[in-house]
């Protein structure tokens, strides 16, 4: 097992730079998820680590070794592909053993390791089948078995669950998680699905247009988004952002003002961010020393089951609230205005120029 370090990594395809100066250190045994919309460079980064993509600039280290010029095999890594990439002409057993055979591991050892992996992944009864006779989840497990037997220093996953249906995805996610706990192998996992990222990762790396938008634990990223992009990318429905002014520790939104419990630098043009799930109709539901209130125009209400989905407008911006159905207040009103309450410690402020988060003064 080993740590992985990216240092000023760049990737250009012709004129376009897909990965722009990527720096990251992954600790030994850590599970890191690269998350971002399509085209953000996350897969390219993973493929450069795998050795499947030429590195345009910068360096990648696995452990203490510079791997830029190494063949994928020499990097001692294993990868699970989006399409699983099982060899159709080989049985499950041959698929799992193929990498060992290529690296000239002796027969008994191959036999032993395949058996071990098959037992762990419950593939033993399927060993003599061909991939086309397997279900999606079974194929997925074969792909993981193939990666496991190599006892790599780093596991790479490239959107491994995106070909599965929602139900299976959940159970495979749990399986990947427990596998990581058992093996403790350093893992880099690429996905566009934030649920996967939040549930699996020790740390999440959010990418946008080839840049790192934020690195942090799932909790950090959700609660302390570093910028507007992360704030709106993480969480569904996405965070409400309303144009505002910051003056004397007060947020001014049109006619309404909110007195903040912490001190901030004044800011003439900023955005207030509140997550729809942080909004309540009933202030008593909030346990906080600072409760804020905003009056919002209602455009419509939908019952989604566990929550009421209130769509509204505030100061010209869309403003959405998810109100728990258990909230004592009755939601019957379909139009007009509604008062929404929230914990002022849980609001976010961003400057409108760079989109970066405005942090409170530390004095």
């Amino acid at each position, binding site marked *: 097992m080993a740590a992985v370090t990216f240092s000023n990594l760049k990737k250009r395809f012709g004129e376009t730079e897909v990965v722009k100066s990527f720096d990251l250190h992954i600790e030994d045994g850590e599970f890191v998820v690269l998350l971002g919309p399509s085209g953000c460079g996350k897969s390219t980064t993973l493929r450069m680590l795998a050795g499947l993509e030429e590195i345009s600039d910068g360096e990648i280290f696995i452990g203490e070794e510079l791997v830029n010029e190494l*063949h994928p095999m020499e990097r001692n890594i294993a990868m699970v592909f989006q399409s699983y990439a099982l*060899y159709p002409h080989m049985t499950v057993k041959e698929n799992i053993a193929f990498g060992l055979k290529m690296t000239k591991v002796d027969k008994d050892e191959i036999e032993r390791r395949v058996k071990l992996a098959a037992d762990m992944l419950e593939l033993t009864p399927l060993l003599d089948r061909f991939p086309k006779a397997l279900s999606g989840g079974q194929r997925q497990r074969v792909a993981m078995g193939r990666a496991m037997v190599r006892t790599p220093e780093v596991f790479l996953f490239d959107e491994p669950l995106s070909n599965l249906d929602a139900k299976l995805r959940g159970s495979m996610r749990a399986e990947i998680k427990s596998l990581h706990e058992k093996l403790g192998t350093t893992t880099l996992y690429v996905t566009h699905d934030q649920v996967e990222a939040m549930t699996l990762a020790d740390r999440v790396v959010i990418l946008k247009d080839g840049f790192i938008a934020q690195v942090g634990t799932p909790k950090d990223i959700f609660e302390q988004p570093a910028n507007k992009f992360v704030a709106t990318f993480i969480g569904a429905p996405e965070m409400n952002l309303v144009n505002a002014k910051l003056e004397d520790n007060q947020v001014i939104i049109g006619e309404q003002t909110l007195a903040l419990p912490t001190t901030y630098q004044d800011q003439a043009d900023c955005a207030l961010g509140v997550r729809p799930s942080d909004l309540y109709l009933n202030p008593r539901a909030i346990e906080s020393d600072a409760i804020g209130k905003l009056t919002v125009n209602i455009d419509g209400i939908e019952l989604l089951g566990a929550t009421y989905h209130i769509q509204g407008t505030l100061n010209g911006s869309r403003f959405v609230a998810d109100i728990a159905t258990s909230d004592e207040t009755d939601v019957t009103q379909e139009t007009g205005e509604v008062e929404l309450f929230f914990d002022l410690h849980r609001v976010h402020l961003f400057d409108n120029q760079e989109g970066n988060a405005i942090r409170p003064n530390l004095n």
Partner: protein
Amino acid sequence: MNKLKKSTIFAYIVVGLGAMIMLAPFYFMFIFATHSNGDILSVPPPLWFGSELMNNIDYLLNALPYFWHNVGMSFYIAIITTALNLLFCSMAGYALAMYDFKYRNVIFAFIMGTMLIPPFLGMIPTALVMKYLGWLNTPKALYIPMACGAMGIFMMKQFITSAIPKELIEAARMDGCNEFSIYWRVVVPLIKPAFGTLGLIVFIGQWNNFMGPLVVMNDMKMFTIPLALRSLQGTGMTPWGAICAGAAIAVIPLLIMFTLSSRRLIDGLTAGAVKG
């Protein structure tokens, strides 16, 4: 309604008659192969099998003492040509389908462009080149120049693109394969259907090749079947029975292959032509 039916029936009859005309030469070839020249020259000619097949073959072997050797040459040259084409075309097709490399599109366009060169253009200089190389009357004069055709490369590229996902190649690379073992252990086992189709096409093309051997083979022993048959023509009374027996021997392997795989052959040939 009734009128429509009549015209449809008429069309079926015309199509059926046409099919008979298409097959008639084969029928008469087999019939004549079993009759003496005297029978064939009588009016009306024989319409059913006779008993002179062995005599015709004797005559054939008399006139062409190396006939069985010629048949062997045809097989030998066609098989080697096929094997070389399968190897070289699939390698090139694999490279063009699965690698991103500089000048790939130029290389591909160039290969396709060579299909536009008509074969007769090379007939004379090739004959001279073979003479200078000392390859006249050797099988390699026929199989080396034909060892890697543009059509085969195109077919293989198309097939590999559609049948093998790029991730599979990458998985093999991650599994520790070098580039050649990716080709050999992953690509080759997965393109067997295309091997079958291309193999048939190349084999048939070389088996029927006439212009090639005509200019590089002048020793009777080294003739392929078409050349051998052709040499029966000419002076004096043409031995039709023997010619038809020989022609039947030349055509039977093709008919067998066609019967076994007509669908694949037709699809392969049209797909190769249409998309090219």
